[in-house]
């Protein structure tokens, strides 16, 4: 299978947030690519679209979604998918992604990334929803591992997440968006999870299209994927191990709450870039 990681530059990007619109437009900083939350650009027009039109001329783009609900047993919301398609056609992104999760049942949406049980039934369902999305969008998508705070008991969850993700990628041809903060948070929160290194070993390097890095907080003895802090030392270590294992992968710095000055994000991205550069130089050819 062809590698999916050739689409975005093999460098660090940052999440574009409204708080940074003006600074981004005025300074056009040296950053290899940008990622947006697709749903924030579903409107017909206005400032988000206008800003993105201008920035798109300077940066490759990744469209990351939170609302496709690829794990919903009742299937996909076609209206949501149609809006994503319009956005994809308008801005020609290098990558399109959403999560391995569900968020709606019986027409009721929770706007949360809720965890799935991993078994044969959910595997078939996610593969079907991913395949429908890819057919409809006319392109490959990336599927991201979420941060989980609960898991399902035996016999509901029978397949490790890493094996589940790898199998969805094998059956549908989709790529994987490996969120290392989520992987770390989940492995700390849940007893049944494999250690992160054996998780990484279950994945094919060629299927990893993008890596996400972010910061977490702790609440009631649970690590929460808040995207409100710098990347933690433990996640940086996991990142270095991942790059050593998979080679350079486009890497995003995500920050959504208590958003700092743009320069803070750019510094985090620079740190990721150094690790990516070192890996690229170490690799033969």
């Amino acid at each position, binding site marked *: 299978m062809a590698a999916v990681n050739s689409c975005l530059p093999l460098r660090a990007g940052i999440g574009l947030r409204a708080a940074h619109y*003006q600074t981004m437009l005025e300074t056009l900083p040296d950053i290899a690519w940008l990622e947006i939350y697709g*749903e*924030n650009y579903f*409107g*017909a*027009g*206005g*400032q*988000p*679209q*206008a800003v993105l*039109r*201008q920035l798109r001329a300077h940066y490759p783009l990744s469209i990351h979604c*939170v*609302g*496709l*609900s690829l794990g919903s*047993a*009742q299937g996909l919301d076609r209206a*949501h998918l149609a*809006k994503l398609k319009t956005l994809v056609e308008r801005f020609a992104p290098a990558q399109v992604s959403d999560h391995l999760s*569900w*968020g709606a*049942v019986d*027409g*009721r*949406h*929770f*706007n*949360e990334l*809720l965890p*799935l*049980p991993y*078994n*044969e*039934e959910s595997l078939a*369902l996610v593969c079907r929803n991913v395949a429908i999305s890819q057919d409809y969008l006319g392109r490959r998508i990336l599927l991201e591992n979420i941060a989980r*705070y*609960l*898991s*399902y*008991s035996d*016999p*509901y*969850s*029978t*397949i*490790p997440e890493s*094996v589940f993700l790898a*199998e969805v990628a*094998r059956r549908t041809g989709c790529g994987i968006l490996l969120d290392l903060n989520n992987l770390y948070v989940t492995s700390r*929160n*849940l*007893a049944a*999870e494999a250690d992160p290194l054996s998780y990484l070993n279950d994945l094919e390097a060629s299927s990893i299209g993008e890596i996400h890095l972010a910061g977490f907080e702790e*609440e*009631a*003895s*649970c690590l*929460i994927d808040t995207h409100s802090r710098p990347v933690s030392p433990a996640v940086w270590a996991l990142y270095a191990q991942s790059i050593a294992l998979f080679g350079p992968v486009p890497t995003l710095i995500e920050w959504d709450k208590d958003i700092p000055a743009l320069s803070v994000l750019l510094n985090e991205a620079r740190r990721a870039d150094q690790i990516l550069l070192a890996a690229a130089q170490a690799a033969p050819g």
Partner: protein
Amino acid sequence: MAKLDKIRRQEISHTGQHDGASPLSLLALQRAVAEALSAERMFATTAPDWLAPPALAQCQEAKEGSAETDSLSRLILYRKHFLANFRQALAADYPVVERLVGAEFFSFAAHNFTRQTPAQSGNLNDYGASFAAFLACFAPAKGLPYLADVARLERAIVDIALAADAPPNDFSCLHQVSPEAFMQLRFTLHPALRLIRSPYPIRRIWQANQASVLIPPVIDLSAGGDCLLLRRQPSVPGSGQGAYRLELIALEVAEYVWLNALGEGKTLDAASAEAFSIEASFALEKCLQVHLAAQTLLNFSGDTEG
């Protein structure tokens, strides 16, 4: 692949041994989770059988209760987060309503709204469109009769921000239309504008309760209502920076009625008749000029050959 095959064999042998009730299907499981998340309170003291205990290390660190209550606490955490997300989404769209009622009452109203009005879209930005209608009927808020209209004003601002862009109007052929045909024309309004009418002075209430105003002045509620035209304008014409500013324009009642009728697709003749019935001295020609120049009126249709 080999790993998954091995798991499959284990799964088959496991389900063979499983002599209790069959596990829930994925759909039934998602309904059970949805029910747990939507419950007004977590009454259960024992975790449902589908919920696995959290990490052992974490439980030992926490040293409170059994693994079972800890797994319940994880469900409660999800519930707390999803309610907080909705409250935050509402607060982002209705900051003046929050300031008027205070954070605590706003949380109470938001929580009640979320219970009554489940989100119907995977896009959180869509949430809360009917918050004004909810507030109008929300008994605990009836001491603030203007609150729902302020919420309508705030929702209009949200809608305007993401409304479609439109190229400048071109009315160069309008002067070729004969006077009789002219009055039969229909106009469309710019998509990034809204008309709002309230018996309360919602414009002053809204302005006085912006975050930048430290101490809101006293507003006389009996001073009369508002007819407002809200629209999105580029912040600096031609700057191309993508920023917009909001314009709140107070209209005369007749002018409001006239624009509203045009927005409903009525002919210029019918809309003007409505305006004249309100105000005999309604300045039709001036209003037409002003709103053509300001791009309020975007397009027209009708028999232009006259």
